């Protein structure tokens, strides 16, 4: 889910393999997450954790998702660097936690 995904503005959702995640976080803005499907433990920063949590209820188009993440973090619109956002999305896709549903245009 790289540049092509950005251009097509895909819609992403939580993947089936992301069910049963165990979360822990302490005083800092780091989230330690256990993924049962892969037996892996991940460390996510605030934005990455926010992406996952925002997708809990429903799929979102990528540009929409970015705005929601900024809101959730109490940041201004556009504060989250594009590169960081797409890196997190790409990484979550690689880890099997999220997946493309279809192009956002089809959803609308």
């Amino acid at each position: 889910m790289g540049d092509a995904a950005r251009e097509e503005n895909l819609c992403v959702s939580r993947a089936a393999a992301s069910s049963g995640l165990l979360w822990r976080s302490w005083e800092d803005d780091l989230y330690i997450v256990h993924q049962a499907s892969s037996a892996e433990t991940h460390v996510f920063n605030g934005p990455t954790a926010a992406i996952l949590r925002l997708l809990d209820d429903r799929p979102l188009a990528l540009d929409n998702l970015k705005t929601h993440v900024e809101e959730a973090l109490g940041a201004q619109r556009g504060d989250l660097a594009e590169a960081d956002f797409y890196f997190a999305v790409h990484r979550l896709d690689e880890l099997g936690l999220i997946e493309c549903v279809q192009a956002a245009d089809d959803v609308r």
Partner: protein
Amino acid sequence: MDSATRRAQQLLLDAINQPADLVRLSVADWELLVRVGRRARLLGRIEADLAQRGLLHAIPTGAAQHLQAARQVITHRQTLITWEVNRILWALAGSATPLILLKGSGYLLARLPPARGRVFADVDLLVSEEKIGEIEEQLVGHGWFKTEMDPYDDRYYRVWMHEIPPLRHSERGTEIDLHHRLLPRTSRLPSNPELLLAAAQPLADPRLRVLAPPDMVLHALVHLFLEGDPDEGLRLRDLLDVHDLLCHFAQQTDFWAGLVARAGALGFRRPLFYGLRYAQRLFATPVPTSVVQQLAPAAPPRPLLALMDRLIPLALLPEHPDRPRGRATLARWLIYIRAHWLRMPPGLLTRHLSHKAWLRLRGVRKRVDLAQLDLRQQ
């Protein structure tokens, strides 16, 4: 054979064949069973059989802890293998090439009986030979890398073998073996990958397949008899796979007739003859008399059969851990060399064995050297 070894082997076979009776074992018997069971990689199987009958609490705590430890490793490995297949499908999104899961990963994803309590090392895939380069490239583009090997081994793989050098994921470390046939190109036994690919059966995800029942049994036999290891000999665990598959598929009508016919078509009648013979002897596998009769002509000449009847059980069954015997070690070597003989023409075999011996002399050791490893990295 000394009585201690006979006792150890009988304990192991009884544990597999009559798990309900395990509750009657003494602590000393359990101790010996855990030791030989670990050696034969069957602790997980024993645990699964007891758990299924709700008997784990009826055995000595010390033994139960070792079984629990074995189950923990198995559960973990099953998660890793299932996940690796999930990620392979992700990496190959858009490709229509069917992937045939072989051996452990096939049993696991097709939910077949041999998966119960079994340790899985890698993901073994069979794909048609012309697609193999494309698949290798796609995987390498998605986080896997080609494992480094010395030029001899790489050439050995690519030129002579039935698979390409394993691919390993850069983060997860799990290995994928991509096969394009079941036997090395050099093998004296034929193998027809096209027939296998055509008969393979789809799983829930249509891109994943497993071999058709007769082919799966024949492949398990090929793996048992031809992929030995000079230290381990033949793996009892692999013969147990064959037994489990036979018992399971025998419920399908026409399975046996299909199996015998397929063995003929693929040129595997001799391995099938051996496999049924020793599965019957060790696990009392129910094989129809008519099948035994049909395979009788595939038996080797009498003196060879008499020799095999001595060597194969020696190579299959673990020794008593405190009383290693020279005979069993010799049997393992003989079977290994025989397996290589079937896989390779004799000239090449000599080259391969001498190359391996040379490597050993040059200090390439299989054993872990403590000095280079801290405990936690074991």
